[in-house]
């Protein structure tokens, strides 16, 4: 987070200095800077790819260790064309959506209750902490014994992963609503309902959203774990299967898709979060 902030501030400084000069110059300058950055970024893949290609061609890089880049690309295209990749990705995405929705809903309800009422917090917090302390990965064998290896297992494991950060951030967000805001509400003689809808909920939204974002990231990670352990479809299964068959190209393609989906979902939520943070109110 902190690094994002510094970067945006630095970018802001550049804008300020360039705004003093000719605007067209500034924009061409910026375009030039972008191209230069892209050029630097391309150095690494170009070097890696050339080593990879020459290694594969001369044969010192055996195919069992790393298949040719063209093979990986072909596998990717083939899996895209046959719809295989789409099917597995859809299965995984659907699991995450169900699990995340369930975990986030329950988590929000519990987090809100814990944030609003000290009593609820006192009763629930220790048990919650104990559950949260044990990572999702550790719950999987236990959940497998209780729930079998069907769809329920995956949904429950994913839901638990989303549940924990949502509860923590929701309760903290509500608890930390600025007392000044509450005083204003008091002065205006708001009813409890009004206080909740007009003050507490809006003020805690940024924090709730942070919880949702972490929840989604954790859901995605635990999806991969649970699919690695017990699954007959989905991206994690594709990984295990490729591993068993020694199809490294399949393994690499699956990793690529897992990274891509994780990246995209986080990016989307980060953009939304930034919008929400803009109207974050700390003081009156």
């Amino acid at each position, binding site marked *: 987070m*902190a*690094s994002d902030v*510094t970067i945006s501030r630095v970018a802001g400084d550049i804008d300020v200095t360039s705004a003093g000069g000719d605007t067209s110059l500034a924009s061409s300058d910026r375009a030039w800077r972008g191209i230069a*950055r892209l050029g*630097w*970024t391309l*150095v*690494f*893949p170009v070097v890696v790819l050339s080593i990879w290609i020459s290694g594969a061609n001369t044969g010192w890089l055996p195919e*069992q*260790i790393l298949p040719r880049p063209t093979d990986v690309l072909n596998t990717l295209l083939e899996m895209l064309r046959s719809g295989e990749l789409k099917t597995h990705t859809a299965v995984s995405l659907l699991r995450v959506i169900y699990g995340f929705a369930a975990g986030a809903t329950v988590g929000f309800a519990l987090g809100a209750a814990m944030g609003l009422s000290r*009593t609820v917090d*006192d*009763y*629930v*917090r*220790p*048990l919650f902490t*104990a559950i949260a*302390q*044990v*990572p999702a*990965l*550790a*719950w*999987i*064998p*236990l959940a*497998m*014994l*209780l729930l079998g290896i069907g769809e329920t297992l995956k949904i429950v494991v994913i839901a638990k992963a989303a549940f924990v950060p949502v509860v923590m951030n929701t309760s903290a967000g509500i608890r930390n609503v600025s007392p000044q805001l509450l005083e204003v509400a008091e002065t205006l003689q708001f009813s409890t309902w009004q206080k909740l809808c007009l003050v507490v909920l809006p003020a805690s939204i940024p924090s709730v959203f942070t919880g949702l974002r972490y929840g989604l990231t954790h859901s*995605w*990670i635990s999806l*991969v*774990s649970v699919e*690695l*352990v017990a699954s007959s479809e989905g991206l*994690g299964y594709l*990984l*295990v299967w*490729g*591993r068993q068959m*020694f199809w*490294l190209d399949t*393994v*690499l393609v*699956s*990793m690529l898709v*897992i*990274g*891509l989906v*994780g*990246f995209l979902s*986080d990016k989307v939520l980060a953009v939304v979060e930034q919008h929400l943070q803009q109207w974050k109110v700390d003081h009156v």
Partner: protein
Amino acid sequence: MSDAAFGPEAATSKRLRRGLVLPLALLLLWEATSHSGLVNPQFLPPLEKVGTTAWRELTSGELLFDLLASLRRDLSGFAIGTGLGGAIGILLGLSSIADRIFTAWFNGLKQIALLAWIPLISIWFGFDQAAKVVFIALAAAIPVILNVVEGIRGASRKDVEVGEIFKFTRPQFIVLIYLPSALPSILTGIHLALIYSWLATIGAEYFMAVGPGIGGLIIAGRERFEMDMVLLGIVVLGGVGFAIDRLATLLEDRIIPWRRVA
């Protein structure tokens, strides 16, 4: 608010009592269900059975053996990962060329869920200790790199100017300016690395289930439908994770006590 009248101590004990209600109720429910004969005791063994299993494993030394194997693995991976991660982080933080070449790719690779690396690593390194340590090292390196870079970038402009006035050499800059100002961030990275490498140890032991270890213990318990073993494993695993986290926090507070205030 009414608690205030009884003083903070009364309030704490009240909170403690309330906090115990749910866990105790759950345990009671569990005990009652497992004795009622409604469920297969294999799935829900009575508490005393879990207790005796724990005692047996503890006294026979097997649990300790597995735990030590896991910890040794954890620490080797952690040490390698933190060392390499620190070096990479310093390079990325200090050299703008390295930063421009690698940072975008590092951020991209970071997006791949850690466990998704296991199949690839196991193809390259097998299922043995080496593969596990490589995976744990990877898990430890990522937070270290991120935090070291952030810490070095965060070095205050004023400090750097002082260094320039003194005409510091490059190594002097690193030792006297960048590292001290990056220290809190570096410690955060190491703290996270400790947590991640413990998680990775469990993950590695699940998926590359060769050799002793707590993860292997849990998996074996699951395969043999021994719920008491699984539960014992989970408790140990959670406990060790908790202890590692507490220990790291204590050390951090010791080394940089000023941060708590800041």
